[in-house]
């Protein structure tokens, strides 16, 4: 059975590295990246910001940030279509992110590059990217406000709706 992305194991590992690299780069440059829900939130993808050469979005919100991180791995590394929002990498939010990828049943089984979607029910209200595990706790980088993004435990807020995998 193919993975969510159709990538091979080695490809998935490299893809996850790129996604985490993108999220960590933005975190390291938080003073230069800003939160917006307006059209500028697609700055990262529209202007083809490549984390591998140190580029990151100046503007984004939670879902466009998560999508940009995944885009760095799925598109810039492997040239895949939009398997995160199904919108040609031009649009999306937590509601469309819930329509794509695969859910993860156990929090202990998460992998870097998975996304946590928060909210009391579909379509969700917030999302964050898992970047590592610390003492068994999945850790996320979340860009939900100014001055984000922030590095937090995945359950920093109580309304975890789903964890989804796109890689």
């Amino acid at each position, binding site marked *: 059975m193919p993975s969510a992305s159709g990538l091979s194991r080695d490809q998935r*590992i490299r893809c996850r590295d790129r996604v985490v690299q993108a999220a960590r780069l933005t975190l390291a440059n938080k003073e230069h990246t800003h939160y917006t829900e307006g059209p500028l939130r697609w700055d990262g993808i*529209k202007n083809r910001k490549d984390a591998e050469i140190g580029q990151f979005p100046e503007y984004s919100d939670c879902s466009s940030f998560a999508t940009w991180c995944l885009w760095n791995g799925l598109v810039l590394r492997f040239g895949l*279509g939009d398997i995160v929002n199904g919108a*040609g990498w031009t649009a999306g*939010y937590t509601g469309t992110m819930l329509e794509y990828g695969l859910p993860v049943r156990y929090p202990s089984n998460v992998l870097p590059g998975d996304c946590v979607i928060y909210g009391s029910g579909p379509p969700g209200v917030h999302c964050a990217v898992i970047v590592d595990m610390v003492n*068994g706790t999945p850790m996320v980088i979340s860009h939900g406000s100014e001055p984000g993004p922030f590095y937090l435990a995945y359950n920093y807020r109580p309304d975890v709706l789903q964890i989804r995998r796109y890689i």
Partner: protein
Amino acid sequence: MRRYAPNVPETLPLAACAPSRVRGAGGERAGWYVRLMTASEDVRYADDDPEYATDAAAEIDVEGAGLVAEDPQNVPADLGDSRTAEPPTGTAAAGEA
């Protein structure tokens, strides 16, 4: 009414998601989350798929070294996202191969 995620129950067990039960759940199999997910039948779960069985190998260099987790109490409330998938704005295929 459109359902965005057919595998997610329309009504969630909110009581089961109370902060006191979630905090400290860590990476263990948080009971409330597992009950929520297993309540969804006919769903293919990523972590049930043997395709991913070896993905968690240590080859993934994602150690959290250098990152210090924020105290959620010190983080501004999330504003959420746009809550809508805006239509394409002429940037179609911006990232398509």
